[in-house]
């Protein structure tokens, strides 16, 4: 595969205590594409995702070895500014985790944390753009003071995506972004992802193989902490190179 990777891991090992959760993972994730990571529960896919913005640092007794290179820099270096890293590498979770605040304040919150506020008008403009981007502006523009928890789950998940977008990240990580949503909302979020990939690098961890097949350009298959196969989604789902991948995606185990 010929591309300059947006994220590249080199010999990545990750330990929870003595347990080796990621073993010599070498992956090159292309920019402005959707990459899915699939694999059975416990294979390390979420751990890998959380390495990309060093969310694992929040868990005690963990250890990481190897390199994760983004824009020419190893983000695992101890002097890495984690706040700025997590701003550049946003994350969307399984269940929409909106704050118990108004829609407006949910969006403004990140701007405030990152001191990106420049007067009310600019904040409003950022909020508008964020909501517009995720297709919520039309339906919510007159309800910005409403509590975000009153929204439907799909709207909440969109709001969470908008909350990430507003900080202008280059990369967005999605950990099972649709598993709490119904099938129609799922397809709508997938449509949104296809739009977002024109500007952002998206990495999705999903249990839903059909989702990976539908939405992603590249797919990585993980098993027991190892990256077994990585390639174009079309290739992985029609003619995988590894028997293990074939057995997993065709439902023969997992």
């Amino acid at each position, binding site marked *: 595969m010929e591309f300059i990777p947006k994220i590249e891991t080199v010999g990545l090992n990750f330990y929870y205590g003595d347990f080796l959760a990621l073993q010599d993972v070498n992956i090159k994730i292309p920019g402005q594409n959707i990459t899915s990571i699939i694999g059975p529960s416990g294979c390390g896919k979420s751990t890998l995702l959380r390495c990309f913005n060093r969310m694992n640092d929040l868990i005690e007794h963990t250890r990481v070895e190897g390199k994760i290179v983004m824009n020419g820099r190893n983000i695992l270096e101890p002097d890495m500014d984690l706040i700025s890293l997590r701003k550049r590498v946003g994350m969307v979770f399984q269940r929409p985790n909106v704050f118990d605040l108004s829609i407006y304040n949910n969006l403004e919150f990140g701007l405030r944390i990152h001191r990106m506020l420049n007067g009310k008008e600019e904040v409003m403009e950022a909020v508008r753009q964020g909501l517009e981007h995720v297709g919520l502006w039309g339906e919510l523009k007159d309800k910005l003071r409403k509590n975000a928890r009153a929204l439907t789950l799909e709207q909440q998940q969109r709001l969470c995506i908008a909350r990430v977008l507003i900080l202008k990240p280059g990369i967005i990580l999605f950990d099972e972004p649709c598993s709490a949503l119904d099938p129609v909302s799922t397809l709508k979020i997938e449509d949104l992802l296809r739009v977002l990939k024109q500007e952002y690098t998206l990495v999705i961890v999903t249990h839903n*193989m*059909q989702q990976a*097949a539908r939405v992603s350009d590249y797919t990585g298959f993980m098993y027991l902490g190892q990256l077994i196969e990585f390639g174009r989604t079309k290739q992985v*789902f*029609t*003619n*995988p190179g590894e028997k293990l*991948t*074939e057995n997993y*995606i*065709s*439902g*023969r*185990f*997992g």
Partner: protein
Amino acid sequence: MVRENFIKYIKELEKEVTEMGEMVVAAISRSVEALKALDAIEAKRIIADDTLINRRRWDIEEKCINLIATQQPVASDLREILAILCIVTDLERMGDYAEGIGKIVVMHGSEPLLKPLVDIPRMADKAVGMLRKSLDAFLRRDAQAAMAINSEDDQVDLLYEQVSGELLTCMIKNPQTISRATYLIWAAHNLERFADHVTNICERIIFLVTGTMTEVNVSRY
């Protein structure tokens, strides 16, 4: 092992494809026998029986569509179902060639054959052998065997050239033979096309095994 049911369905489909293949083998063999004997009654039966082959094709096709719609097959499962869809389309067409020979027998009527048939039954034997081998290669997922079968098509082509050359000579020598010779050329042509469809089946087997579409044999006809 999960998805046992799905795997069972696939195995059943494979069995049905080979059964359909045997129906086509029977049809083409019977049609050449009917031609040898100029047996119009048998020929009419062959024509009628083609419906059974057609029905079998729709039946298998429907099962494939159901599996795609309900089981979301991927990787080699998907390739196999797609291969089966193509193979049954070829088999159905090959059944039509047998039916076509039946129709030629009916058209030929009671006038004696221009000459005793030698090369036409040879073509049929060769083509039937190719079909049986291809179905066997399909069940065994044997891309190499499928590749080897393709070269046999050249032998069928050669026989066809021989048959049509001889018949052309007859027609030139004696224009009275034109209609009877034409019927035989048609029959030989049907067999030649029959063998070409076996090479299509072989291409699908190679695709099923390797995941790549390869054009293996460009027939001269």
